[in-house]
């Protein structure tokens, strides 16, 4: 276990350095002078105006933009290691604060979405596999292929129209009570649940043709017992890995969904920061997203070794 943890931590450092460096250098290669764009956002609040040279110079000086890129990046890493993620250009408040304040919104959304996708995806996959080639199977499979095929932004607007506007069941937007969480979570969770349902089905079918299932039936177990006791645990092994990956997609998806639902989370912060080139905030978001992603993967790895005794425990 210790080895896994150490490997993960090493991996984490590597990923954070690689992704922040990637983003850092890419953002600086964006067309238009960074200082000019920043000046527009900081001082003018409007991209369509042109800032004065004095303003640009002040920005350059204040944020050390004249230094070589590499040394800027090293300074950032050095400060980050010491817990200082920098200050947002736009708001002048610390990046950590900017992120922490929006953390609950994104975390809630992401977890409810993944929960929802598991709650729908797992049973749907099982039912489709168990009733292979039946109407139910075709129905569940078609729905899940549809779930993958619907662009999530499209689904989001559709859902607002049906459930908020026409039926009046949920608020159209905003962040607050549980009701306002439903639609964003559904739009974010639907593609994930479709992916999980499909994988669950094929994994289940794969497991059901294994010899040990025949052994279990040969023992006289009922079909349901065979599925619950013998098949499920095995079925979950490949699914768990995908759940980790899906979580990553989900975090990426928050970027669009949060914008549509005016959900005040990290995704929206990231989008506005990318356009305003608020590099410390972007870096902070990237670090946060990578950490979350890696933590989730760590959890899936652990549950993986819990589900599959062939992995991890064989050492002792």
């Amino acid at each position, binding site marked *: 276990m210790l080895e896994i943890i150490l490997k993960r931590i090493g991996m984490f450092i590597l990923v954070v350095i690689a992704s922040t460096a990637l983003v850092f250098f890419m953002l600086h290669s964006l067309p238009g002078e960074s200082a000019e764009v920043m000046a527009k956002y900081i001082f003018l609040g409007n991209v369509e105006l042109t800032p004065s040279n004095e303003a640009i110079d002040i920005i350059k000086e204040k944020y050390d933009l004249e230094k070589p890129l590499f040394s800027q990046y090293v300074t950032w890493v050095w400060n980050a290691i010491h817990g200082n993620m920098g200050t947002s250009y736009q708001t002048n408040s610390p990046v950590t604060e900017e992120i922490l304040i929006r953390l609950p919104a994104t975390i809630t959304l992401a977890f409810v979405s993944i929960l929802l996708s598991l709650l729908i995806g797992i049973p749907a996959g099982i039912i489709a596999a168990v009733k292979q080639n039946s109407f139910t199977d075709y129905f569940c499979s078609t729905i899940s292929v549809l779930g993958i095929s619907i662009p999530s932004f499209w689904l989001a607007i559709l859902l607002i129209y049906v459930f908020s506007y026409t039926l009046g069941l949920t608020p159209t937007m905003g962040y607050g009570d549980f009701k306002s969480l439903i639609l964003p979570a559904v739009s974010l969770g639907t593609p994930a649940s479709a992916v999980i349902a499909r994988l669950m089905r094929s994994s289940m079918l794969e497991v059901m043709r294994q010899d*040990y299932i025949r052994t279990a039936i040969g*023992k006289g177990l009922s079909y349901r017992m065979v599925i619950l006791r*013998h098949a499920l*645990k095995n079925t979950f092994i490949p699914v768990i890995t995908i759940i980790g990956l899906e979580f990553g997609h989900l975090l990426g998806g928050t970027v669009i969904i949060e914008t549509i639902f005016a959900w005040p989370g990290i995704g929206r912060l990231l989008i506005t920061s990318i356009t305003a080139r608020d590099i410390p905030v972007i870096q902070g978001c990237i670090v946060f997203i990578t950490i979350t992603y890696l933590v989730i993967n760590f959890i899936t790895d652990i549950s993986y070794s819990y589900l599959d005794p062939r992995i991890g425990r064989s050492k002792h």
Partner: protein
Amino acid sequence: MTLLSIRNLKSYFVTRDGVVKAVNQVSLDIFENETLGLVGESGCGKTVLALSILRLLSENTVVEGKISFKGNDLLRLNEEGMRDIRGKEIAQIFQNPLSSLNPVLTIGLQVSEPFMLHRGMKLSDAWQSAISMLRAAKIPSPAERGKEYPHQFSGGMRQRAMISMGLACNPALILADEPTKGLDVTIQSQIIELMRELVKDRKASMLLITHDLAVAAELCDRIAVMYSGEIVEVSEIKDFLSNPGHPYCRGLLRSLPLNGMEPIPGNSPSLIDVPEGCRFHPRCKYAMERCRNEHPEMYEVGNGRKTRCFLYA
């Protein structure tokens, strides 16, 4: 006394290349307290025959005929009735224990299951019974090893676990499908010894499927030989070894290392396009005109022995 009687059993698979007639019009009796060996080349339908008995074949298989066991026709029993038979009355020991044991459940739990299922035991009691069953199968320190997973067992140990699982509820009939396949020779003989002991102790009958005549000779009372989905000879083991009837059986015996390893010419036919007439005639040196056109019956040869060959007509 006949324990299990199979009459005109047909097991067909429908595949995209055609209908695979894996078991074709097989009739066979297994008596109480006896071990019947079922031998034949790989792919001749032995395993399908065994799976047909417990109805463990996939959905696209057509199984017809009659399998009588203790007054029931197994092919017409409902799913619930079948479950009461499986593991309790008839148990199967599968080949390749590594894939036939669930990799994510402990050996102990897998052996406990029949006890819980058919004896109505709670897990803790079932576990104790499972441990003693493992002990009976000569697994060292069974209490500890019961908590381990299949991948932590060696090949021989897995087969022992498999056997103890099969014998857990003292079934009247054991279907053992190649129990020694893939094991070292020394381990093989240990397993054979173990099975002989356990089966005799429990006064159970056994259908032993193997392609290894030596194993059959060790364990069996009678022997049935299968070729291309059909039974071609049924006989007492001693008679069979000393004087095989069917030309295929003669060939089998001659191909043993002990007898000079003389191969049977040609290949076994596919189960989709079976030859007209006697299935064996393309490879048979005694083949006559009649063999090409007519399909032979099982002919009584005497001493309870039957052979599917016109030589004995």
